[in-house]
């Protein structure tokens, strides 16, 4: 069997060799608990702080605004549960969007169990919301709006800046899940007007198991921690800091800052090429907005075939049929359904996601494999 073509970078992107190198160096040498005051502890702390500056740099934030976590799932939980629980006396209402990641929707559901109210906005058929919709949903006691920058299934962008402008001056916190955005589109927290932003390392060739939450400095939103004990990370996130992981994240973010612009052009060209090649298949549909989307994701629905059979037929490709997170459940993607796709069509969809190691050859192999699979399954089906 040949090595399968990997087009599932949005689920997790293999670690860049330079990141691996940086991590191995830390693991091999700069040991020490960064809270300790002896030399090794101080060396560990120096590594930590330079990584903090690298992560901050990609979103143009001050280093002191970065809190390290175990990943964007934890960052989203800390932002949403943490801000709501700390501000519950000021208000009990939150606003988000139906197409958010589970790591946003599930903490919101938990808040509902804790007595908060949540409004989930519908997107249009292209996966977008507009700022006026958000404004219209604002209530007297709205405390937080959470909107993702780039959707993980479709790549659709939301216009965060216009949302920030629309709701500004009301003391409402704006949280952005940027797990799929960092390194894929340019981000500037101050210019965007964001209070809290979730970041993940492993989506851009850093290690899994480490992420960060940007917490604006002035004014600084108060957050109730999720974990207690130890006082690390400004008291917001205790636990011995995994310096190698954080250094890996810093390195990945530095590479994205240095090479991101070139890489984005490359990925969007490859993505367009794939879409072009798939055009020989009739009755296919692009999911999401045709232009307002990140360069690394292409999501396509195929009429007239069964989703599970499609997935099996393209198994030489590592692609997702919906978010990796909902893959296990076997349910058709709720994101695609929110865009108006019927269940069966939503199920017969593939998310191709590209990354640093994706080649033209990968794209050709993938296109050929999908074309063959879809045409064969259609041939098998009653006309």
């Amino acid at each position, binding site marked *: 069997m040949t090595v399968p073509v990997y087009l599932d970078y949005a689920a997790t992107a293999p670690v860049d060799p330079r990141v691996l190198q940086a991590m191995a160096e830390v693991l091999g040498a700069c040991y020490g608990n960064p809270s300790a005051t002896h030399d090794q502890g101080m060396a560990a702390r120096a590594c930590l702080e330079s990584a903090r500056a690298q992560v901050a740099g990609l979103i143009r934030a001050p280093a002191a605004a970065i809190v390290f976590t175990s990943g964007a799932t934890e960052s989203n939980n800390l932002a949403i549960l943490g801000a709501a629980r700390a501000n519950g006396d000021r208000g009990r209402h939150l606003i988000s969007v139906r197409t958010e990641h589970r790591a946003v929707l599930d903490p919101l559901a938990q808040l509902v169990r804790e007595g908060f109210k949540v409004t989930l906005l519908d997107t249009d058929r292209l996966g977008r919301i507009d700022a006026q919709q958000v404004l219209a949903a604002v209530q007297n006691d709205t405390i937080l709006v959470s909107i993702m920058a780039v959707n993980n299934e479709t790549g659709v962008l939301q216009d965060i800046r216009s949302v920030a402008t629309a709701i500004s001056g009301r003391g409402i916190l704006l949280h952005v899940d940027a797990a799929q955005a960092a390194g894929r589109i340019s981000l500037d927290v101050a210019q965007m007007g964001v209070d809290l932003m979730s970041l993940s390392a492993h989506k851009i060739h850093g290690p899994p198991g480490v992420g960060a939450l940007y917490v604006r400095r002035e004014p600084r939103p108060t957050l109730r921690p999720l974990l207690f004990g130890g006082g690390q990370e400004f008291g917001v996130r205790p636990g011995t800091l995994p310096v190698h992981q954080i250094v890996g994240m810093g390195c990945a973010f530095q590479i994205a800052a240095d090479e991101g612009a070139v890489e984005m052009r490359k990925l969007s060209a490859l993505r367009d090429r794939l879409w072009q090649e798939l055009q020989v298949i009739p009755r296919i549909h692009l999911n999401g907005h045709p232009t307002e989307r990140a360069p690394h994701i292409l999501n396509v629905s195929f009429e007239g075939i069964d989703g599970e059979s499609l997935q099996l037929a393209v198994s030489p490709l590592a692609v997702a049929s919906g978010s990796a997170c909902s893959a*296990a459940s076997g349910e058709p993607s709720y994101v695609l359904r929110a865009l108006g796709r019927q269940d069966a069509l939503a199920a017969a969809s593939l998310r191709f996601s590209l990354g640093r190691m994706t080649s033209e050859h990968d794209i050709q192999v993938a296109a050929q494999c999908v074309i063959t699979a879809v045409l064969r399954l259609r041939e098998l089906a009653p006309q």
Partner: protein
Amino acid sequence: MSSPPYTAEVLALFERAPRAGRPQAAGWVSGEGQEPLTATHVRWHLLGANGHIMDVRYEVRGCPHTIAVAAVLAQRMVGQSVAELKLDVAAIASELGCDMTKLGRLFVIEDAILRAAHILRS
């Protein structure tokens, strides 16, 4: 985490789908079955003679197990008496290691066969 990988037999049946197709010749009868939730759709073609099944073809839009069960049934039907058809979809599904929550859609195959057989009998 949940769905087990397919058995080698299911994989082989899915890839080859033996006897799949649309007969063009005269003398065949057909029946259909559909399940709207998953959009499963089966059309079954039978060629009968002397109260027996002489040949079988089928068309399927469905999951790998639906295709595999259809292929097994098609194979086993050839030679059977139309009056006493043996169509144990559930038994075949379990032979093939299929997740039993899928039974609902698998009965679509039975629907299609029974409709075709009904035409054959009448």
